[in-house]
């Protein structure tokens, strides 16, 4: 009888432990899913009409086309045979389990900052999704870039391995934001200039740049003349990151993807932490007007034609004074993305229009019409010149040639 009681007690104890272990596992997997969203893994590791995380998405680069890999837990074609150590090695060191070098299109330069616990959680989540047997497609790189040993040179120049180190002089919130922006968020992959070698020197981090192959300009996050958020309120920043629209501006193009697949899923605390960090990295300093390459007569002609086009096509939504009806119809006056040195984004918006992403906070976004078929190169240049130089905006005029060149920019 006593032994029966003992057995029962032991049984109860053991089921309790199993249940608790399962609970812990669920917590870790849920946390891993959240972190995988923060890292926007899905954006690259899922093809447009493919199954989730089976890879195969083409990533055009100046060196050729890379195809992303299957990260479902399939033992043959995915990461089913990997250990948490293997996974951490790819995230932290940019190497496959066998030591092979990973192309830096995988943002391990940022992911290296991710903690071991977070890496393990993401791995636990990836292990929990359905395995899909789908072979990785070989990369299609031009000579000599197919030679992986070249990555060694790139790593020497641009890769510094190491987990995120907290700055004890800053708040926990700031450090959390910094960890997310610089680590999983890998914001620097687009918001830093990329040099001819496909790398970003540390000193150039977050200084903005044209995204190779996509021809969208990812503005600087440190300069208030671009997307520096120094004079934005925390609420405007969190609105933009969570819903895609804000009183100061709206996300389109590649940033719409980031909000759609990643940022809208972050909780309020993490979003606020990112906002606090982003606001802090903006360099103080007044906006200095840029100098124009166009002759004065040409730019005054453009401005006068631009006003005619603006009043006819744009003013009904964006307002006679460029005030817009925020957040849905963004203001153009005092809008950094209109004024910044690169005119690529405003020209593209006039040509191609666009919708902000559909998000939980803004499920039925208003869209900007594409004017490529309605306006000539001159008219596009004129209206963009007008909005960049009127209402106190201090951008520079753009030429018809710049407008024309972006007609053939890739759309998706």
């Amino acid at each position: 009888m006593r032994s029966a009681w003992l057995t029962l007690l032991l049984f109860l104890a053991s089921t309790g432990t199993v249940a608790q272990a399962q609970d812990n596992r669920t917590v870790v997997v849920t946390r891993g899913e959240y972190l995988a969203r923060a890292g926007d893994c899905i954006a690259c590791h899922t093809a447009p009409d493919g199954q989730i995380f089976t890879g195969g998405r083409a990533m055009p680069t100046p060196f050729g086309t890379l195809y992303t890999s299957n990260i479902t837990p399939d033992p043959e074609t995915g990461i089913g045979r990997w250990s948490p150590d293997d996974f951490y090695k790819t995230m932290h060191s940019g190497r496959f389990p066998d030591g092979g070098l990973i192309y830096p299109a995988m943002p391990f330069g940022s992911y290296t900052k991710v903690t071991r616990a977070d890496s393990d959680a993401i791995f636990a989540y990836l292990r929990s999704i359905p395995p899909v047997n789908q072979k990785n497609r070989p990369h299609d790189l031009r000579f000599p870039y197919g030679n992986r040993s070249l990555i060694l040179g790139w790593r020497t120049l641009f890769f510094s391995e190491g987990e995120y180190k907290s700055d004890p002089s800053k708040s926990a919130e700031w450090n959390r934001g910094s960890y997310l922006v610089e680590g999983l968020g890998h914001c620097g992959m687009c918001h830093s200039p990329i040099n001819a070698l496909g790398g970003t020197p540390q000193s150039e981090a977050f200084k903005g740049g044209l995204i190779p192959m996509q021809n969208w300009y990812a503005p600087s996050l440190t300069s208030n003349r671009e997307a520096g958020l120094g004079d934005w309120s925390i609420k405007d920043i969190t609105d933009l990151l969570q819903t895609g629209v804000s009183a100061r501006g709206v996300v389109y193009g590649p940033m719409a993807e980031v909000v759609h697949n990643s940022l809208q899923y972050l909780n309020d605390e993490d979003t606020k932490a990112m906002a606090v960090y982003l606001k802090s990295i903006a360099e103080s300093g007044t906006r200095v007007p840029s100098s124009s390459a166009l002759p004065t007569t040409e730019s005054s002609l453009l401005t006068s034609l631009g006003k005619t086009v603006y009043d006819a096509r744009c003013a009904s939504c964006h307002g006679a004074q460029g005030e817009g009806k925020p957040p849905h119809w963004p203001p153009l006056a005092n809008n950094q993305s209109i004024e910044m040195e690169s005119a690529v984004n405003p020209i593209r918006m006039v040509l191609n229009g666009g919708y902000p992403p559909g998000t939980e906070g803004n499920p039925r976004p208003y869209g900007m019409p594409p004017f490529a078929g309605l306006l000539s190169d001159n008219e596009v240049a004129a209206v963009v010149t007008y909005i960049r130089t009127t209402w106190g905006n201090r951008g520079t005029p753009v030429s018809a040639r710049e407008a024309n060149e972006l007609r053939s920019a890739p759309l998706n």
Partner: protein
Amino acid sequence: MSLRIAIAGLGIGLSVQVFPVGAQTPGQPPDTMAARVEACTPCHGNQGEGTSDVYFPRLAGKPAGYLYNQLLAFENGRRKYPPMNYLLEYLGDPYLQEMADYFASQHPPLPAPVPSDVSQDVLRHGEALVTRGDASRQIPACASCHGPTLTGMEPAIPGLLGLRPNYVSAQLGAWRYGTRTAKAPDCMQIVAGHLTEADVTAVAAFLATRPAPENAAPVPKGTYILPFFCGSQPN
């Protein structure tokens, strides 16, 4: 009780009058679908009636299921046209359904038929394929699926009126070459695969000469039996 309903009804009636659909909050865009789909209008017209560009189709009055299928196909890239793929890529499916419902509910008049620049022989050939098909070449009549009046059938078979020959030719070509596809069994790909280029020209030209019927709305689901099963038109 009936008085209460009447009073409640009066309240609704009043509120509808005081705040018409799409009431405008000051400083905000109109809360309407018309304002939300303005991005569609430069190419498809204010009510989806089409524009002077012959390659951009009319959307107005097409069955919502058909429009929704197309929006989904553009969103996920199965139907390829970069300007459309780009616009729709990050919108949610329920919102695409709302867009489809909106254009399906628009009924601007069909354009007047355009005099054709092809020969009478070509038009007669087009008429034969549209109305009777060619059994010897396994070509069903367009009318056997798109309806005797060519106005389509709910929920997902589109009408063929109000489309310019260039658009119809381009789409039939895309079906033939497999650049436009639908859910299997992909009926249009099978049918278009049996068409020659001369057939395509004739069908597109004849369709554009058809006058608008009195009722241009798609007929209700199940009004007639399809000659074969199509993946895009669930039974």
